[in-house]
């Protein structure tokens, strides 16, 4: 796969930023969006899992709980 974890994480972050306050995204929503964006040959679920972990460990995104678990921006970055 030529797409890197960094690239997927960045694309996920952009999507979370664009949809913030309009739509709540779950991990699988981001995964499906990335597979569609980069293509199944370049991006799979495992790569997306690593990208989400990078977003969480870096603090760029956090999890929220609103009936289910969603991925969103930290309150001070929103």
């Amino acid at each position, binding site marked *: 796969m030529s797409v890197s974890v960094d690239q997927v994480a960045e694309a996920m972050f952009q999507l979370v930023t664009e949809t913030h306050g309009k739509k709540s995204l*779950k*991990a699988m929503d981001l995964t499906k969006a990335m597979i569609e964006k980069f293509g199944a040959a370049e991006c799979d679920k495992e790569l997306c*899992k690593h990208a*989400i972990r990078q977003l*969480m460990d870096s603090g760029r995104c*956090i999890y929220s*709980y609103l009936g289910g*678990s969603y991925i969103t921006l*930290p309150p001070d970055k929103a």
Partner: protein
Amino acid sequence: MSEERKKRETPLLDELESGPWPSFVKEIKKADTAMADDLLGVLERSYEEKIGHWKHGGLVGVMGYGGGVIGRYSDLPQDFPEVAEFHTIRVNQPAGWFYTSDALRTIAGIWERHGSGMTNMHGSTGDIVLLGCKTQELEPVFAELTAAGFDLGGSGSDMRTPSCCVGQARCEWACYDTMGACYDFTQTYQDELHRPAFPYKYKLKFSGCPNDCVASVARSDMSFIGVWRDEIKVDAEQVKAYAAGGKLDIQKDVCDRCPTGCMKWDGAALEIDNANCVKCMHCINAMPKALAPGDDRGAAILIGAKAPIVGGALLASVFVPFIKMEPPYEDIKELLSRIWDLWAEHGKNRERVGEFIQRVGLGNFLEQIGLDPVPEMITAPRANPYIFYQDTVEDEA
């Protein structure tokens, strides 16, 4: 008690201290902290007004994790400032709930320094539940817990903290190493435990025998219940001793209560039709010195149980009638991976896997995960019309 603390009048809750039974009010008062005062105060208000005053969820957690912290806020923060934030922390319990006294003192010390000092040992999920913490104390609690060798458990739409009975550590009926399996699955699926990626929660519970001491058949999305596939072991002399003892009527108390009627007692010998035994454990529980599970032991895997939160309650259904429970459990993990892939992609928000199976149909579900239907999946003849045989199978027949 410090002089600044505001004494709460709680006449309704005080009623719960009367009587001979244990009282949670009495126990909370023993905490003797400002948080405990306000906790009782807000509960007294709820008793007066007959409505709850807690909000749930939100953005709280620790860095990198999506589970383990359940956000709790009072909707009366001005009146009860000490519990304006009163988050719950779930800590992954040791398999089988074995602790050293030193470990318990460590947990208690951390919680007295950073939280309310009140705990719930253990929550229904199995975790150590630390009750009541302010947001600013979450990271310090997490840092101290991990330094002491503990980790947070699951919450939200993730794999919840797996739990197991004490298994072979203390129980002669355990048909496999429940603690070993629970530990193995917990370690394997750390990502699924800490980073929610599912439509809703997914619980794994490991019971060593059909007595099911962790109630997995009622509460877990996937339960592993120890069973045997050879014959019940019978000690004929001990059977006679039970009969002679006069405390047990073998015909009435054992044979007549066998759900499949597979046991016969002629007053001298016990005969068991093992092919029709459904492993309910009743006879073994009634005559533990005379009967025991067979030697060819493993587990039945059941799927789909849940408590009634969003929809109604479901009991688990047999999914794999028998499998050897031996590390590294590769077949089970492969099956679990296929289930999670399908459910995560097609499940609706807050839809448990049992509800998902009901919605798409067991036949379709089995086809998608590549598992063949077997008669044990059917609760009663003609009761499950969602299994259809392929034309090719009918032709061969």
